[in-house]
């Protein structure tokens, strides 16, 4: 239960006011509902007894009936306020959770961040965040409202009816609901985690199957492989059914507990009335209060149904929210230019190094191209120089800020101006336009991109990503296959544009095309480097 508590605490810390308002109004709705039913019940019985005793004319009808009307309207009004307040709180919590998550992930290390680019991991993440949305509105608010109502009923019935009845109504309802909640939370955790894992497996299997469908058809294995996916589906559905069964049992248990509480109240209050310790209207008041409490407890039903899912989601999300420091920016205080000494780098921490014993210096104004077959470590080397992964061995001295055009840069939705301003908030309009010119990108600054930079061709996206790096005027520029997707003429013009824009930068290119190698003053062949070492 701890991760769920962690998330609830975060909500509380973030949105205390919104939650308090929602909670106060939930309690008001619960209380006015109970009082409405209890007062109506008392009124009918009292009126009936007065009528039978021939006291109909002296019975004060106006105060109770005004009370009933007032409570009816108060309940409606507070219900409206409650819905507004709880939704406002939920939306705030919803946004707050996402901001926190984004903050946490933005502090994560390079390995996790690059793994998150895959669609699968992201789908999982959003599904988990969505699952937690209901925590406040469907579980915490109803539970707290029930607690407040139980306390109010306890006090009210204690004073107006009898302590034993008060204890029974409040205690039985509340403890019944909590017992069902605890049981369901415990029983549903296993099946719900299993259902989630199975669903995950089905999703991956489906994507895998569909991506491989050409070859599967050619290999004559399409129908057989489909059967495998469908068997994953059978397992996923079986797990979902097991989860649902627990939810339905929890609902039935809540209803049965409500019925027992009601029956118990009738028996207890009825006995007191027959012994003339309380009046019949007082007994009715208690019975009707028990009835209303049962309805309140039933409101927990949906929250209980989602409890297992929420617990699983919280267990996965909570570690991502743990406070950690942002990755330190690399030290750039060395003498101008870039110097690598006896450097060994790996693709990721823990893997064997792909490049070893590398010595290289790039002076300001110089351009060096890295050559080598694919998988030879060009990208890993640039990642290490940029400070994304620590080197396995050796020293990197950076004498200037780093600008790095990665192999697969990601753009975000927004205008070209937004994109460039994200990199350089203080840049002037003239600068923004100049950098686009330099990258030979002939688009207006107001041009709006969709998600992930949708709406640009591959070549345009690459040039915009380059412009985003250049606008920061870095002292050291790292370029990973910068002209990928550009035709030869544009490629050459863009490369010369870069040098014109940054005449004094030390430029290191992971080169792939002849144009890039020609553009460099010096070429380092990693294939040869290795055989020499």
């Amino acid at each position: 239960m701890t991760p769920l508590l962690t998330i609830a605490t975060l909500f509380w810390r973030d949105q205390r006011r919104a939650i308090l308002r929602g909670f106060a109004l939930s309690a008001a709705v619960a209380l006015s509902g109970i009082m409405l039913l209890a007062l109506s019940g008392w009124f009918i019985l009292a009126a009936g007894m007065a009528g039978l005793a021939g006291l109909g004319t002296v019975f004060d009808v106006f105060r109770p009936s005004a009370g009933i009307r007032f409570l009816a309207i108060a309940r409606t009004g507070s219900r409206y306020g409650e819905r507004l307040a709880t939704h406002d709180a939920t939306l705030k919590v919803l946004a707050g959770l996402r901001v926190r998550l984004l903050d946490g992930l933005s502090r994560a290390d390079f390995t996790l961040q690059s793994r998150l680019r895959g669609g699968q991991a992201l789908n999982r993440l959003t599904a988990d965040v969505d699952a937690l949305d209901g925590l406040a509105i469907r579980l915490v608010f109803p539970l707290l409202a029930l607690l407040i109502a139980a306390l109010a009923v306890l006090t009210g019935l204690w004073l107006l009816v009898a302590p034993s009845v008060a204890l029974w109504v409040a205690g039985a309802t509340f403890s019944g609901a909590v017992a069902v909640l605890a049981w369901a939370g415990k029983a549903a955790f296993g099946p719900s985690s299993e259902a989630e894992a199975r669903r995950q497996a089905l999703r991956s299997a489906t994507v895998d199957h569909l991506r491989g469908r050409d070859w599967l058809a050619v290999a004559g294995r399409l129908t057989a492989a489909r059967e495998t996916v469908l068997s994953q589906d059978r397992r996923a559905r079986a797990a979902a059914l097991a989860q649902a069964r627990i939810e339905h049992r929890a609902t039935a248990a809540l209803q049965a507990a409500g019925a027992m509480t009601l029956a118990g109240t009738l028996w207890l209050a009825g006995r007191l009335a027959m012994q003339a310790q309380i009046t019949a209207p007082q007994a009715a008041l208690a019975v009707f209060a028990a009835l209303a409490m049962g309805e309140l407890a039933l409101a927990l039903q949906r929250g209980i149904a989602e409890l297992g899912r929420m617990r699983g989601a919280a267990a996965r999300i909570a570690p991502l929210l743990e406070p950690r420091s942002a990755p330190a920016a690399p030290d750039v205080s060395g003498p101008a230019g870039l110097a690598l000494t006896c450097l060994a780098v790996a693709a990721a921490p823990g893997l064997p190094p792909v490049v070893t014993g590398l010595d290289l210096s790039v002076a300001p104004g110089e351009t060096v191209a890295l050559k080598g077959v694919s998988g030879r470590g060009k990208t890993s080397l640039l990642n290490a120089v940029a400070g994304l992964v620590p080197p396995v061995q050796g020293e990197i001295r950076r004498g200037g800020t780093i600008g790095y055009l990665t192999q697969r840069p990601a753009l975000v939705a927004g205008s070209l101006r937004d994109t460039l301003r994200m990199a350089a908030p203080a840049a002037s309009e003239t600068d923004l336009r100049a950098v686009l010119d330099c990258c030979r990108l002939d688009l207006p600054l107001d041009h709006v991109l969709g998600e992930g930079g949708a709406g640009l061709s591959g070549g345009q996206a690459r040039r915009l990503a380059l412009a985003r790096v250049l606008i920061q005027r870095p002292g050291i520029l790292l370029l990973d296959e910068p002209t990928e997707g550009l035709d030869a003429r544009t490629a050459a013009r863009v490369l010369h544009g870069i040098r014109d824009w940054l005449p004094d930068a030390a430029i290191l290119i992971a080169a792939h095309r002849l144009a890039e190698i020609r553009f460099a003053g010096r070429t380092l062949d990693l294939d040869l480097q290795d055989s020499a070492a």
Partner: protein
Amino acid sequence: MAREPAPIPAELVRMAASQQRALRLSASLSTLAEALWLPQAALLAWALAGLATGRVVALSWCAGGVAAIGILRAVSGLWAAGRAEAAADAVIADTRSALLCRADRRAPEAAAPSSAATAALLVDKIEMLRPYLLRWHPVRARVAVMPLLILSVSTGLSWAAGLILAISGPVIPMFMALIGLAARDAAKRQMDEISDLNALMLDRIGALVDIRLLGARRAMLADFTLRADRLRARTMAVLRVAFLSGAVLELFAALGVAMMAVFVGFTLLGALDFGTWGRDLGLAEAIFLLLMAPAYFQPLRDMAAAWHDRIAAQAVARDLLADAAVPVPAILGAGHAGRALAGTVTTHGLVLRGHALPDLIIAPGEGVALTGPSGAGKSALLLAIAGLLPGYGALRIDGVPLGQSNADDWRAALALIPQKPHFRDVSLREELTSGRPATPGAIADALRLADAQGIVARLPDGLETRLGESGAGVSGGEARRLTIARAALRRPALILADEPTADLDDGTAEAVIAGLLEMHRKGATLVAASHDARLIKALPRRIEVGR
């Protein structure tokens, strides 16, 4: 109230058609559970009235009866839910299998939905049918039965009480419209907000590395917070109006209950002497009437609560209909194993993806390079020869048109080397052999031919390594060499290779060309779409596409 186009509700009905009986049973059971409230309430009323009038009451029996009926209600509710759950499970199973079958036979066209989008529909969105079948179906039955039942029972006791409820009667259709209007807007807006916010977050998460490199972490967070807040404010504006309509509904229900309480109270006091069919209203009847009033409105409120499920299910039905309407044809044949069938390929007047292709004849054993500008239809032609892309015009194998009946047999004789290799999340051995038995010698030969022994030797678990998305990685060039080995293991009569050397460095490209040519020398027909001068030169025949 805007009506959704008719096909969507019809699609929902069609999907649930096979489970109609189970759903009807579940709805009846759920209505029964609700209707059992009448005897339970009657028992409560009778007991309370007995206490007030001093009549001797068998209290234990009454309390026991109230508890027993309550438990019976819980049990029939449980039973109803179990039935509906099983029905929903069956509906989901059918819908999933139909969708998967449609999606995996779809020709590889750009217009085909992405695998991730199809998976999201198949796995997550279809799940939305579950709450719809579980909650909306029964609640609709309850709305049809309960108000009428309570109205007739109440009218039987007192026509004035019936009248009070009946005043709300004509209001019910209006209620429904109000509920619809309010809940639809609220639910839709909230779902939109969640998906907008998710999209916004995913966009940023996808770019986290870039944001870090640009040093824009704080600026990005501030911007996201601002945008998220703007989204919230806009959503709340819509919700406020929606909730107001909901409040009107609640007010009607609350006033109905209050009116009933006051009427019954005054009647008991003797202040009112009409509306009871000329006899006195007993105390038990009075309490019963009071208990009935909220129950009269309960199904409507349940309906409002379940409206969200209905909208979600309609969204799923809409997506499924859109998926079915995707204008992408299915591949020829079923995609299961066949008996290898070799022969001369002839095409006549073939039009694929809007490109008219040259007529050609490719005899067994030939080596052909398909050349021409990008986008001229070279890849499409290869796919069409493999029976994966139906088009206009004739494509024959030894004079027999390639169609449903012979496509699987034809494909059994060929191998396809795609431009972008995809390795499934299975062991490399399974991927290379496509699940057929193969001797270690045969595998070693195929790997040698593709110059890929070294790749396998480097992998952590050798042939048992999983190369899929979740598995160990190989570089693009290595993956290409493995697809050559995969093709070689099939001992194909025809090899279709799509840009086999694109994006490869010189050494790798030469290894790939050598592998292809070795298979060709051993007798396989080779058709390669390529821009690579080395490969084009090595093949005896060249066909220009797109001139």
